[in-house]
């Protein structure tokens, strides 16, 4: 029986941690981009577009991420394409995070007083211009704390991708546990590493929220 | 024999000395008004009497109970003296009747039926018997404050502390509350009232206390107090405020 040191375990976990971070960043960026698209569509003049987005958000927020992951994984496979785990993970997390981010940002846009819309309309701007030049820049400030907060959710969400075989931190934990028979230590360390990733972000989000709340009191 | 004894009470918030040595004795059945500018310490003094604020030095007692530091001692004290707040502070999730009943039941162990009767009596006393099942948000400010009075009365206190109880009311509602207070006074309740209602103080109170910069600056029966203020600060204060 090969003896494993704690350092062996930690080193291997850290290697997998890279992929957790990479997947999180990818999902955040792609999800954010899709989220903005959804946001614009949500505000559309066309009822059909608004309803589609509402259903999209309902479905992605009302079903388990695990199921979404499986559907993407097996869904793409239906087209005969060999889908690598990281791709399915990326697509699923993108679609999932886009739904939450669109909702969060919609809340921020809604918080902008009607007067802003009215004033910009009087200046003959169309909806797109109103959003882009007047409303979104103001909504951006309010949006930063909850968006940073959701980044924490994305990092935690990547754990589920271990189930389809993507070797991020949790999968590495499972593999290493099977090799070392030390689940308490291994998963303890895995938890610790997620904590080290997430906790600073959580605190930063809270800090930002306090800062903006104070700034809001004119 | 005094009911409420306040002896050399001092209190500071950090470097700010809010009470600089208060000596006051209030007799049973007395109605005492405390007036003064904001920042003079009058509300703070009132809140020290039932322990909502702690004192740094000195001594306060109500009846046979000395103001202590522990929760248990504070609760002993609060059984003897009730408080009415400027913002009423009725419990919004309870009906009027339950607002009045709740403390006798959970603190004094009264039976439901018994508490109900006491509540009915006190609500009748303040003229709101028919509002027993209503909720606070269905009542006007004046009615809410009267419920608050009924709630405090249900604990059968020896004295009531009133912290600017009409200041948050629309002018036309002030009188219905003062009417109740007047009635309590004639029935012999001991009252300590921080108030801006000078006319009321003049008509109902036995003594008026003027507080200035954390001290009892002048004190006396209303006839002298309002017509012949002795100190320049009180003269100025009364000139500022119409009597």
């Amino acid at each position: 029986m090969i003896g494993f040191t704690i350092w062996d375990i930690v080193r291997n976990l850290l290697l997998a941690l890279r992929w957790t971070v990479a997947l999180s960043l990818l999902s955040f960026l792609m999800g954010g981009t899709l989220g903005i698209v959804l946001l614009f569509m949500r505000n559309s003049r066309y009822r059909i577009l608004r309803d589609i987005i509402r259903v999209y958000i309902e479905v992605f927020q009302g079903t388990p991420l695990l199921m979404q992951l499986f559907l993407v994984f097996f869904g793409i496979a239906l087209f005969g394409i060999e889908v690598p785990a990281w791709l399915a993970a990326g697509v699923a997390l993108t679609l999932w995070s886009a739904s939450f981010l669109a909702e969060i940002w919609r809340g921020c846009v809604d918080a902008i007083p009607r007067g802003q819309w009215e004033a910009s309309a009087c200046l003959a701007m169309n909806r797109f211009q109103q959003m882009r030049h007047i409303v979104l820049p103001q909504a951006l400030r309010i949006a930063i704390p909850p968006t940073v907060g959701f980044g924490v959710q994305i990092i935690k969400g990547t754990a589920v991708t271990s189930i389809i075989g993507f070797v991020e931190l949790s999968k590495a934990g499972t593999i290493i546990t099977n090799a070392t028979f030390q689940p308490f230590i291994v998963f303890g360390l895995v938890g610790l590493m997620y904590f080290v990733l997430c906790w600073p972000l959580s605190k930063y989000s809270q800090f930002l929220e306090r800062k903006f709340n104070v700034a809001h009191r004119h | 024999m005094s009911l409420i004894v306040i002896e050399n009470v001092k209190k500071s918030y950090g470097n700010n000395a809010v009470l600089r040595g208060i000596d006051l004795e209030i007799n049973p059945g007395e109605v005492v008004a405390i007036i003064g500018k904001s920042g003079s310490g009058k509300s703070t003094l009132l809140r020290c009497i039932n322990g909502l604020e702690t004192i740094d030095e000195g001594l306060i007692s109500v009846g046979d109970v000395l103001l202590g530091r522990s929760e248990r001692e504070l609760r002993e004290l609060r059984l003897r003296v009730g408080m009415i707040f400027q913002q009423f502070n009725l419990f919004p999730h309870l009906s009027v009747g339950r607002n009045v009943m709740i403390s006798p039941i959970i603190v004094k162990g009264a039976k439901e039926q018994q508490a109900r009767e006491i509540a009915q009596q006190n609500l009748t006393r303040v003229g709101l018997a028919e509002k027993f099942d209503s909720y606070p948000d269905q009542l006007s400010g004046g009615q809410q404050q009267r419920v608050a009075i009924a709630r405090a009365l249900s604990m059968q206190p020896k004295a009531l502390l009133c912290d600017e109880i009409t200041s948050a009311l629309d002018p036309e509602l002030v009188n219905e509350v003062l009417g109740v207070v007047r009635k309590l006074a004639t029935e012999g309740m001991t009252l300590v009232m921080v108030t801006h209602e000078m006319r009321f103080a003049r008509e109902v109170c036995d003594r008026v206390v003027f507080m200035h910069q954390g001290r009892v600056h002048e004190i006396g029966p209303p006839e002298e107090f309002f017509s012949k203020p002795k100190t320049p600060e009180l003269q100025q204060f009364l000139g500022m405020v119409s009597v």
Partner: protein
Amino acid sequence: MIYQFDFSSILEYAKVLEQGVLMTIRLIVIGGVAGVSLGIFGAWARTQGPRWLKPIISAYVELIRNTPFLVQLFFIFFGLPSIGVTITELQAAIIAMVINLGAYSTEIIRAGVSAIARGQIEAALSLSMTRLQVFRYVILRPALQKVWPALSSQIVIVMLGSSICSQISVEELSFAANFIQSRNFRAFEAYLVTTLIYLIMAILLRQILHYIGRRFVFHRPSIVAPKSIAILKGGQA
């Protein structure tokens, strides 16, 4: 080549799906009640509890909220036995869900408690109530009223998260889906049907929680209600 969808092969396994649904319901009912109860305790401890307890609760909340449920579950199910604690899959799943929901609930309810106006507390104290009585009769129900939507959302999230318990062989709905697709190789159909069932369950759960809110949390009886109503109701003798 067009893929032939075959949903009938899924419906053959309707019984399996039904068992899965029942287990998921079991998990969320036990987990939900225990988790929210733990949350109430945690909120009390953080606002009024003994000094030594506060940092422990804070640490617990921060730890759970900043680690994935999957890791928490695996730590409990795989980790505990390795230090001598024997535990079944179901026990591990329920414990993990309770600990998870407990942490989030503590934070949510605590926010509600903090939002209670100080005057309410002062009025209650002036009526000579103990701090515990103040919490139970004056603070708790208004706090729950304020946060009921957020709390309901969190309960739904935990119900959806229970899908992960399939990974430790708890026979809930996701496990049923895995089972079915391993038999008939209709993975996409199996997961599609299961996902739809989850969606329906989530919608129903939200409705149920909304109803519970109206009935017990926001409930305003015009007569004194019978003693049998849940502990969530304040103001009852």
